[in-house]
């Protein structure tokens, strides 16, 4: 914001509107004196038409000459016209011409001056400050209106043009000063961010068409209201001067109300509410008042209608238009601001006035009929305003690549025809196709209501798939159909699955036939044994062990049944735990054992699952991805027994699950910030992919959002506290120093180290992302598409500065009711503010991020050099602090003289240069120098490919060695590490492979 230019501009528009209102009051009084009140409607038509014509002319001139040259000439012209107006009238110039010319000229000047004020502010500053500049405009009108009304009585209206001329001279001086201030301090509102388009794109053209419709309709409604009100005033105030005074006083009074709104409510409205809300206020209240007038015709209702229209046109509609135009590049924005307000709106007004005049007195003789008709126009206006607001949201988000998407249906729900195709593919000769089909089938669900009629399908593979689905999700209503289908099933595989479905439903319908068929088929015999033990008991633990290898899903069901039956047997749980422990060490049964523990317990085995999850074992993650709702509920109840690393792995793995909403909901409120953050990302994935989000609706999302907000505020407070410490001397008497002295602690009054400050900045950015994910999840739980908000979060956290500010505006449009979120994010985007006398950064952070608090308190000082060095390569730039710290603690420091590794040798590690330099030689290319902070050998942590170059030290160098296992362990905790590595590889690849760019 250019503060000096803004203040000069505000003074300029105040004086400018004083001129405009003073001249308008004089001119209309002269018109009435010459032609009588009955000709006022023609004045409306002529003024509106004159304004539109003058605006078009201004547009044409400013497309050839710069506004900074044209505007001062116009201001001077207004001043001369004002000073000469009384003389011109005496000389016989037509009052009509004079009125139209003065009004048009002063109004065009007003538009031009407004563009100059708007050039001094941009973005959210514009939303906050332009309404206050509008208040200055209104103040000018109040002074002129009330003053004119007061002065006209003793001195006559002839004093007004001379006052206008004098004020014009002030306006001219201010305009010149403001132009200089803009040149010296910049014009943020008139400068496009680098790399942005200068012309209107398709979303902006659509927005413009809606804004034109709104401007026309607004002009029509305003004219009808004005004419009705003027007719009412004429009937009350018969004398010319009385009428003029009444009009001026009313004008001044409404401006006083407007002034109050512009200073207080409107700025807050523009930075907290979405545009559809803001744009709806004006048409809605006009409809309400006009409806009241239609029901109870009278001066009060009509005055209320006109006041609402006059005040809200400038308070909300004009500001909504200003906000909408912010989606345009600066050039078209300034141009269309003038055209919409000076030409399009007045054109609508002139058209309405012309129609009313052609209708004659009958138009105002039936006021309620006219009011009803106008209400109809207002409804259309309201719809257009809403459409314009929606198009603004699209135009605002478009440059960030954010667009609303079609609602996704649940991809796991399929029709029978699809199931038939997929089961056929599952038996395909091509292994990859068959694997894909099986993976698709594993997630698929056919509507149970249609399932029953297809259990006797012609294809055995289809019958098998349907039986398998019934085994996964027993449906009591289909029990009889299932029994009947299994009774006649001839295919061994389908029969086995049918028997499983019956057994898991507690039905022994297939057993008898199964026993006889089992003699001929090993698979059927195995299923019969499992079914018998499930239904009748027996060697349950042995069967669980066998099923861990053959059919983990059945093992889970069997364990649940067994635990229910032996709930009172203390020893049974220990025996089960022993059986599972044995199975878990067998590679063939480990995956099944972990799946059983995850879904069915017992709780005593959770440490085993915990250990596997923390290590990132694929079978443990698969167990989480395969959780059903009962398993998710069990883990949710015992989640406190799991370590943060395990809970983090669960939160991420649930993104691949089709169920598990209850567990996810529980993790949303996790005390560990990494876990909560991961749970929020997964909740968003659930919502974005069309999966069932009914559990999310019941989840403590509000609490998760509050926690995210509190964490962000704490990080920002810590940032401000650090800024204060940076300006505080050690012996200053501050509460922090006194507290430390009382505790016997060293005087921790120095600011954070560079490393801690950088980690705080990164963690704060992570808090912003977490807050945005929470807002997106809340949006999803409310039944709306969270994708735009999630995409905005990425731009907000990772985008360029202009994109981040635009993203914040998009957040305002998309979020529902959490206005405090906007203020906090805006605080993040501004530099820190030193706030002396408060708590230390570590104390502020401790409740939210224990690791970062320790770093800020200096407890991890020995780790800081390695941490700082690892932050330098782009590869590690966005890795979460605790994960990077773990990597740093496991990396090995080596001193290198001579060769580090040779070309063609097998690589096992990557190296980060901490001091000195390395040289990479790959003939025939010249040697590449890698300075401190650079990385070599990255490919070795991903592939076993031979080294591409020979790397030697240039003298003596020190490196951090990160081997493949260390990197893999860190990557399991921080996937962004692999993203960073991929980005590095992509950078090397990009120039040569546009097909994968």
């Amino acid at each position: 914001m250019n503060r000096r230019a803004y203040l000069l501009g505000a003074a300029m528009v105040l004086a400018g509107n004083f001129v405009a209102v003073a001249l308008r009051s004089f001119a209309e009084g002269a018109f009435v004196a010459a032609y009588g009140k009955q000709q006022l409607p023609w004045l409306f038509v002529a003024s509106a038409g004159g304004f539109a014509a003058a605006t078009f002319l201004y547009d044409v001139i400013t497309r050839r000459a710069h506004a900074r040259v044209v505007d001062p000439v116009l201001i001077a012209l207004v001043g001369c016209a004002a000073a000469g107006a009384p003389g011109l009238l005496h000389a016989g110039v037509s009052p009509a011409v004079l009125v139209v010319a003065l009004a048009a000229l002063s109004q065009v000047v007003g538009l031009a001056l407004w563009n100059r004020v708007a050039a001094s502010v941009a973005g959210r500053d514009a939303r906050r400050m332009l309404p206050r500049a509008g208040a200055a405009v209104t103040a000018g009108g109040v002074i002129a209106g009330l003053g004119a009304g007061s002065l006209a009585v003793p001195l006559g209206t002839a004093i007004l043009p001379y006052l206008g001329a004098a004020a014009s001279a002030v306006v001219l001086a201010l305009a010149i000063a403001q132009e200089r201030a803009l040149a010296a301090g910049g014009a943020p509102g008139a400068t496009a961010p680098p790399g942005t388009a200068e012309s209107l794109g398709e979303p902006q053209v659509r927005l413009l068409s809606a804004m034109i419709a709104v401007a026309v309709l607004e002009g029509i409604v305003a004219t009808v209201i004005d004419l009705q009100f003027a007719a009412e005033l004429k009937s009350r105030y018969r004398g010319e001067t009385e009428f003029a005074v009444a009009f001026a006083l009313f004008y001044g009074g409404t401006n006083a109300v407007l002034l109050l709104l512009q200073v207080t409510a409107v700025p807050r409205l523009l930075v907290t509410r979405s545009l559809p809300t803001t744009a709806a206020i004006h048409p809605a209240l006009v409809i309400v008042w006009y409806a009241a007038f239609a029901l109870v015709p009278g001066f009060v209702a009509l005055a209320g209608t006109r006041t609402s229209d006059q005040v809200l046109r400038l308070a909300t509609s004009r500001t909504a238009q200003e906000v909408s135009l912010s989606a345009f590049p600066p050039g078209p924005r300034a141009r269309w601001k003038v055209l919409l307000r000076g030409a399009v709106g007045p054109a609508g007004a002139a058209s309405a006035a012309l129609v009313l005049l052609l209708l004659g007195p009958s138009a105002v003789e039936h006021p309620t009929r006219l009011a009803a008709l106008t209400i109809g126009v207002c409804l259309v206006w309201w719809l257009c305003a809403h459409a314009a607001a929606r198009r603004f949201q699209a135009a605002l988000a478009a440059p960030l690549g954010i667009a609303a998407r079609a609602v996704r249906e649940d991809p796991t729900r399929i029709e029978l025809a699809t199931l038939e195709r997929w089961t056929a593919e599952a038996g395909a000769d091509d292994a990859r196709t068959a694997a894909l089909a099986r993976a698709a089938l594993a997630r698929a669900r056919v509507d149970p209501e249609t399932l029953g009629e297809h259990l006797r399908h012609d294809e055995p593979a289809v019958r098998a798939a349907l039986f398998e689905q019934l085994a996964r999700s027993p449906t009591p209503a289909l029990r009889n159909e299932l029994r009947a289908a299994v009774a006649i099933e001839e295919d061994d595989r389908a029969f086995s699955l049918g028997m499983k479905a019956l057994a898991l439903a507690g039905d022994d319908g297939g057993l008898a036939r199964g026993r006889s068929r089992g003699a001929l088929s090993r698979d059927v015999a195995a299923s019969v044994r499992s079914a018998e033990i499930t239904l009748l008991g027996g060697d349950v633990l042995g069967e669980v062990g066998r099923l861990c290898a053959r059919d983990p899903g059945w093992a889970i069901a069997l364990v649940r049944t067994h635990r229910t039956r032996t709930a009172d047997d203390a020893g049974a749980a220990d025996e089960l735990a022993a059986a599972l422990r044995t199975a878990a060490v067998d590679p063939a049964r480990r995956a099944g054992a972990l799946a059983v523990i995850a879904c069915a317990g017992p709780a005593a085995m959770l440490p085993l699952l915990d250990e596997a999850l923390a290590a990132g074992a694929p079978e443990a993650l698969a167990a989480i991805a395969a959780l059903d709702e009962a398993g998710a509920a069990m883990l949710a109840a015992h989640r406190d027994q799991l370590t943060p690393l395990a809970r983090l792995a669960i939160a991420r793995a649930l993104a691949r699950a089709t169920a598990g909403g209850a567990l996810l909901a529980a993790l949303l409120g996790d005390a560990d910030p990494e876990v909560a953050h991961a749970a929020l990302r997964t909740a968003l994935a659930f919502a974005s992919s069309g999966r069932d989000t009914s559990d999310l609706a019941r989840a403590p999302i509000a609490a998760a959002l509050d926690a995210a907000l509190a964490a962000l505020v704490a990080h920002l407070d810590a940032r401000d506290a650090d800024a204060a410490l940076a300006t505080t001397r050690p012996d200053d008497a501050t509460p922090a120093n006194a507290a430390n002295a009382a505790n016997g602690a060293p005087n921790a009054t120095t600011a954070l180290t560079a490393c801690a400050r950088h980690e705080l900045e990164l963690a704060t950015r992570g808090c912003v992302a977490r807050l945005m994910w929470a807002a997106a999840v809340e949006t999803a739980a409310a039944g709306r598409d969270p994708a735009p908000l999630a995409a905005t979060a990425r731009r907000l956290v990772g985008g360029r500065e202009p994109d981040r500010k635009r993203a914040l505006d998009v957040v305002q449009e998309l979020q529902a009711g959490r206005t405090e979120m906007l203020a906090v994010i805006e605080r993040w985007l501004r530099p820190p503010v030193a706030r002396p006398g408060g708590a230390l950064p570590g104390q502020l952070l401790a409740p939210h991020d224990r690791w970062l608090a320790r770093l800020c308190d200096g407890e991890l000082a020995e780790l800081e050099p390695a941490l700082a060095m690892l932050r330098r390569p782009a590869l590690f730039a966005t890795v979460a602090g605790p994960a990077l710290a773990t990597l740093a603690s496991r990396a090995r420091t080596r001193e290198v003289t001579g060769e580090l590794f040779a070309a063609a040798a097998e690589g096992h590690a990557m190296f980060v240069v901490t001091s000195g330099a390395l040289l990479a030689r790959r003939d025939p290319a010249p040697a590449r120098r890698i300075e401190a902070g650079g990385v070599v050998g990255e490919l070795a942590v991903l592939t076993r490919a031979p080294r591409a170059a020979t790397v030697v030290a240039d003298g003596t160098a020190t490196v951090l060695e990160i081997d493949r296992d260390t990197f893999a362990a860190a990557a399991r905790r921080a996937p962004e590490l692999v993203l960073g590595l991929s980005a590095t590889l992509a950078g090397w690849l990009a120039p040569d492979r546009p097909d994968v760019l």
Partner: protein
Amino acid sequence: MDLLERARALAACPLFAELAPPVVIRLAERAVPRDLAAGERRSTDDTVWVVAEGSMAVVARGAAKLDASVSSMRRHGGTASAGHVVGLVRVVAPSTPVVEAIADRPTRVLALAVDDVRDVLEEDPVALASLAGALARLLVEGG
């Protein structure tokens, strides 16, 4: 294209060859098939394009004129035929130049939002490592 057909088209891409079937299925759930007529243009501003059938001439934005012909784009860039993925790198490196593509014949593509691809990869560390490994192999093979 149903889900399985989309998954098969994705699995045919060398870059996705190492991804586990469940990951490919999750990508396919988010993929939207599009049929492009010859001459239709697309870009990778916020979308990854997987060529299922047909081919497209591709070039980094700025390397050829905005209205460049197919042959001109091919001359300055390259060709993406069935099994090629255009714009995937922007998933991991957003600062990578946008690619302009034009179908040189009727072409069927799968559109994946960059954000969606990133989500799927971040959900699954193994998938992420597979992609990184595929990129690394491309580099090593000099392809």
